């Protein structure tokens, strides 16, 4: 006899509210239904009432983890409509901020995954490291969460002492290479809780159109930083980690390897930070009529913005956001099918879902 177990909208495994109704037979999950919308704020509609300064601050609040990515993608789209190109130094600073954000997002995810594995010490370790990353972000931007770094035509704040930031990054890299990654990849607790669970096959990953680490952990080598470089990514050397297994271990390994790749990118960007201006200095923007799109590789995967404007208007006529979790979440249904009930909190967390992003 099958029975339904509701997980959420409020549950210790969920960072934010959503609902997963699990249809079980015994301890095995046969199917599931996802319910979202608990964080729906109508942000896209609200954006149409905000001018070109206000809309940046508004879209920064789509997500509390990858706030910088949202303003970066939005500003790139708006630059497409104004014809402005940020100076090279601004492009490098954008890369630095994006990679620091990826680091803090991946370490945050590692902490939550550790907690769900029943590995509380690791949870505390990850959160201690994340604090240090946030200290770096705060040193650069003056803020811990909503950094307010991006503007049309560049960035708002300079990195005045790249060497000091580089030292902080090297210390972080050492700590992650010596603590987080070896424990996650070799500890019995981590392996026994993650291996062969929540499998998403390559075929299913393709048909669901998943993105980011979820796609790369299912054998798909897709990364917008490599496929369609933006900011200064074309000048960075880095690898795109891919794992074929499609299970939670693969998602964990991909993120662990991406932490090291982010450190590699940060070292290059800080070492090669070009001199010059950090923005174009404009404060009035000649928007042309039309639609511009922009895509960025956020920590959870590809973010896409479509921004429409009418010449002479101070407000956008449409802002559409496609977040990575919106693409990844439907795949949870296939990941939990056949899984043990006790594994479902970790499986759903393994895509690093963000419901605020998804609902907007």
């Amino acid at each position, binding site marked *: 006899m099958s029975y339904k177990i509701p997980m959420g909208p409020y549950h210790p495994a969920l960072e934010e509210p959503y609902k997963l109704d699990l249809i079980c037979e015994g301890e095995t999950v046969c199917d599931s239904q996802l*319910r979202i919308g608990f964080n729906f704020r109508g942000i896209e509609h609200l954006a149409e009432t905000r001018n070109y300064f206000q809309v940046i601050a508004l879209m920064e609040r789509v997500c509390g983890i990858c706030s910088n990515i949202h303003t970066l993608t939005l500003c790139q789209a708006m630059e497409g409509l104004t014809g402005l190109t940020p100076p090279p130094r601004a492009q490098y600073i954008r890369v630095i901020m994006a990679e620091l954000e990826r680091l803090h997002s991946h370490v945050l995810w590692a902490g939550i995954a550790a907690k769900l594995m029943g590995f509380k010490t690791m949870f505390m370790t990850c959160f201690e490291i994340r604090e240090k990353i946030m200290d770096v972000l705060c040193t650069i931007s003056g803020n811990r969460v909503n950094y307010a770094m991006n503007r049309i035509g560049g960035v708002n704040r300079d990195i005045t002492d790249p060497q000091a930031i580089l030292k902080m990054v090297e210390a972080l890299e050492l700590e992650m290479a010596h603590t987080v990654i070896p424990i996650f990849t070799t500890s019995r607790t981590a392996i026994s809780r993650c291996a062969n669970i929540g499998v998403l096959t390559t075929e299913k990953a393709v048909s669901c159109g998943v993105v980011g680490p979820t796609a790369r952990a299912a054998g798909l080598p*897709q990364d917008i930083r490599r496929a*369609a470089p933006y900011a200064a990514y074309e000048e960075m050397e880095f690898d795109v980690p891919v794992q074929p297994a499609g299970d939670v271990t693969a998602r964990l390994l991909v993120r662990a390897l991406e932490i090291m790749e982010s450190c590699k990118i940060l070292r290059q960007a800080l070492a090669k930070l070009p001199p010059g201006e950090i923005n174009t200095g404009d404060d009035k923007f000649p928007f042309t009529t*039309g639609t511009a799109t922009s*895509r960025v590789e956020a920590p959870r995967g590809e973010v896409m913005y479509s921004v*429409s404007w009418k010449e002479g208007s101070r407000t956008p006529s449409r802002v*559409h956001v496609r977040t990575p979790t919106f693409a990844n979440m439907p795949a949870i249904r296939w990941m939990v099918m056949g899984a043990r009930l006790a594994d479902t909190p970790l499986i759903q967390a393994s895509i690093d879902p963000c419901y605020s992003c998804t609902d907007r």
Partner: protein
Amino acid sequence: MSPLESISEKLGTTEPWIERGGAHWLPLGAMNVRELASAMNGLRARFVTITAYQLPKEEGFRLEYHWDLGGQLLGFSFQLAGNSIESIYDLCEAVDWIEREIHEGFGIDFTGREYEPLLLRKGDTPGVNLREAVAASNAVAASKEKI
């Protein structure tokens, strides 16, 4: 043959691609969205999203479908005289949530598919134009304030 040329050939069109606003756009003429989705499947392009636009006055809606092919963002625009268009959910599983979201936000009906309960606004009425509904309720609230 470039990837874009191979798409044109697959879609049977001689129209030139237009690079605009970060995407490559191809005018499709009389081609319908299901033919397009089948062609994209054949090319193993990755579905990205659909963006809906409400046009002024009684002009209807415009839907922009996006696929990614090897890092190139492809755009295809469909003008809707009314408020319905064929669903491509059976051809492309990845469109499920965005079709549902557009149905819930703009009241556009994607024909040939069934809708599960609301993604957003649980318990509310599906298939309404949320923008118009919000504008109407704001107008009512404003008139009450005046009184």
